[in-house]
């Protein structure tokens, strides 16, 4: 703690927000030095749900690590599947059939929508509005049902394989996905009229927790948080991977850098993801969903490999060091919210608890992904 925090004359006190607290959405602990309602210092304390995923990766074969990918960011697990699968494919030089890539993109984008919807509901809950959560869950439920049909699970997906997918999608999935796109498109204006345009919401979000682009660069912030601060960085556009270059979509960027900007980026991203899903359904090619000649036991050649994907919260990167055996030598996962959370200490200085909660919510934290 700094000198200021220990100053007896300031009458500051330490408040532990978490590890069990309604606003931290998980076992994050933020140690706050408070001066009345104002925060003097905020220090995120991590490690409450550390499970050594990276170390686990060194102790099992390449393929056996795939289920762990559903347990980092449990709200956007398919992006993590994609990141890991793509990294290993790059390392082992496995080509993925186009149909499989299309389905990957489709499911990842659906997963992104469900993640953003849940974030919207949970964020409004942080701000004291209970009702939007249940509306968002209603829509999210449809996505979970669809993904359950093809992936077999509702939350901790393990759908992708090296060289393709675990199984193909069927006509019902495509029909449902198409219906869902139309349904959510008709419901988004409702969210905007009921939630976005609410006077109290604007008062709570506009000008709160402003981050500038320079700060984002310093902390390695990515994803909607960076795009809300005017940084036009989206891995899908900047370092294209998979079949994303074939789709026509925009990257929403807002320059205000406040909580409202981050809110709007995510809401716009839902629309863009819907566009991608629609194009993927229409352009879905025929063919196999699994590459032929994928060895039973993958042994990437010796080397150092990195692959990043755009997860719902930002850039998720997998760095693999292979020594040519059937287990990774070293595995490093770069999770977006870890960097995004680092902003908290700087931004929370001098703001009230309520604004700090509003800021923390706008970062869209998923704690198991921060701790890994």
């Amino acid at each position: 703690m700094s000198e200021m925090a220990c100053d007896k004359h300031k009458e500051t006190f330490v408040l532990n927000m978490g590890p069990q607290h309604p606003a931290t959405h998980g076992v994050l602990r933020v140690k706050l030095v408070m001066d009345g309602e104002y925060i003097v210092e905020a220090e995120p304390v991590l490690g409450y749900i550390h499970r050594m995923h990276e170390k686990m990766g060194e102790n099992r074969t390449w393929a056996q690590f795939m289920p762990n990918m559903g347990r980092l960011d449990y709200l956007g697990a398919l992006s993590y599947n994609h990141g890991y699968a793509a990294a290993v494919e790059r390392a082992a030089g496995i080509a993925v059939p186009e149909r499989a890539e299309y389905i990957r993109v489709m499911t990842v984008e659906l997963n992104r929508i469900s993640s953003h919807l849940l974030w919207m509901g949970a964020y409004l809950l942080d701000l004291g509005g209970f009702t939007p959560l249940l509306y968002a869950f209603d829509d999210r439920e449809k996505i979970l049902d669809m993904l359950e049909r093809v992936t077999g699970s509702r939350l901790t997906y393990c759908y992708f394989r090296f060289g393709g997918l675990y199984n193909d999608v069927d006509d019902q999935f495509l029909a449902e996905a198409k219906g869902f796109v139309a349904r959510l498109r008709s419901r988004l204006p409702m969210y905007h009229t009921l939630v976005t345009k609410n006077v109290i919401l604007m008062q709570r979000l506009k000008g709160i927790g402003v981050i500038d682009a320079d700060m984002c660069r310093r902390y390695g912030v990515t994803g909607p948080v960076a795009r809300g601060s005017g940084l036009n960085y989206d891995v899908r556009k900047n370092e294209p991977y998979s079949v994303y270059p074939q789709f026509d979509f925009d990257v929403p960027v807002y320059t205000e850098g406040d909580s409202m900007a981050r809110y709007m980026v995510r809401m716009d991203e839902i629309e863009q993801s819907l566009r991608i899903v629609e194009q993927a359904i229409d352009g879905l090619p025929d063919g196999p969903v699994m590459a032929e000649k994928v060895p039973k036991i993958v042994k990437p050649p010796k080397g150092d490999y990195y692959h990043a994907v755009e997860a719902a919260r930002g850039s998720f990167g997998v760095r693999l060091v292979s020594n040519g055996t059937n287990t990774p030598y070293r595995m490093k996962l770069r999770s977006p919210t870890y960097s995004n959370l680092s902003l908290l200490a700087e931004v929370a200085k001098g703001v009230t608890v309520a604004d700090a909660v509003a800021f923390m919510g706008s970062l869209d934290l998923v704690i198991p992904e921060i701790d890994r």
Partner: protein
Amino acid sequence: MNPEIIRVVGYVVAVIAFVALNAAMLVWMERKVAGHIQRRIGPKEVGPFGILQSFADGIKLMTKQLIVPEGADVLLFKVAPMLVMIPAIMCFVTIPFSEQLAARNINVGLLLIFAIASVNVFALLLGGWASNNKYAVISAARAVSQNVAYEIPMLITAITVVMFTGTMNLQEIVLGQAGGFWNWNIFPVGKNIGMVVVMPISFLIFFICSMAETNRAPFDLGEAESELVAGFHTEYAGMGFGLFFLGEYANVFIGCSLSVILFLGGWQGPFGLLPGVHWFLLKVYFLIFVVMWMRWTFPRTTFYGLLNLSWKILIPISLFNLVLTGAFIKVF
């Protein structure tokens, strides 16, 4: 036996029973309203339409152990929940449910209610302070400054009504609004055409203030659960929490019934038809429904937004209203 004593005992029993039953009803109503706003059905298992749900909850709360946290001020910790209930029940003394149905007809009834109701803040402060919990202390401090801030515009608007009606006797205020809705204080076309401008604004200010006074959303900063866990009642278990809860609903009822008495004609019918207790309850429960509607629709304001609203907007407007009232009473 002295019939006066029987009357007093009868009213005390009736009021306490009414407060408890009313709170049970309101909890059920709140859950149903919330349910339907959120596209679900709310409680339905216990009794028809789940109407006995709050009684089941009450039994659960009463069987729970009352835990006093370590380091708490035991006496104050136990007194605080009672101190919420006592003023809430006492306020019912002067509220006229109908022409005959009022425990006491006091000529300073309005003043008495304001005087007693302000004790409520004291209870929140004590409860928060005695809990020995930082969240509770922050919440108690919030509750106090919120109540102080909103009592002022509320009193000023009450004064405009008193100036207009010329009495602080709640019974007489209602009697003065007899005849039809054009005589109600909210839109007194029949009485003073100038006040038509002032009174709707006064009603709005009064209603907003009464919501803020009772710590209801969107002004529920005292128990803002995403910031302060459960606010001043974080450490209360079982019926200690139950009493805070009952007290909140009793205060909501009092706030809404004051709005009804002062502005919406109390137990008078809209066209002067069949005045009676049913009109009063109908109007009060409608206002309570509006309060619940707001709660489940709006997010919470911030503490400073709340104080700004009171000091920078509501107080100047209500003062301006007060001046206008004086002028209009002279002119028309």
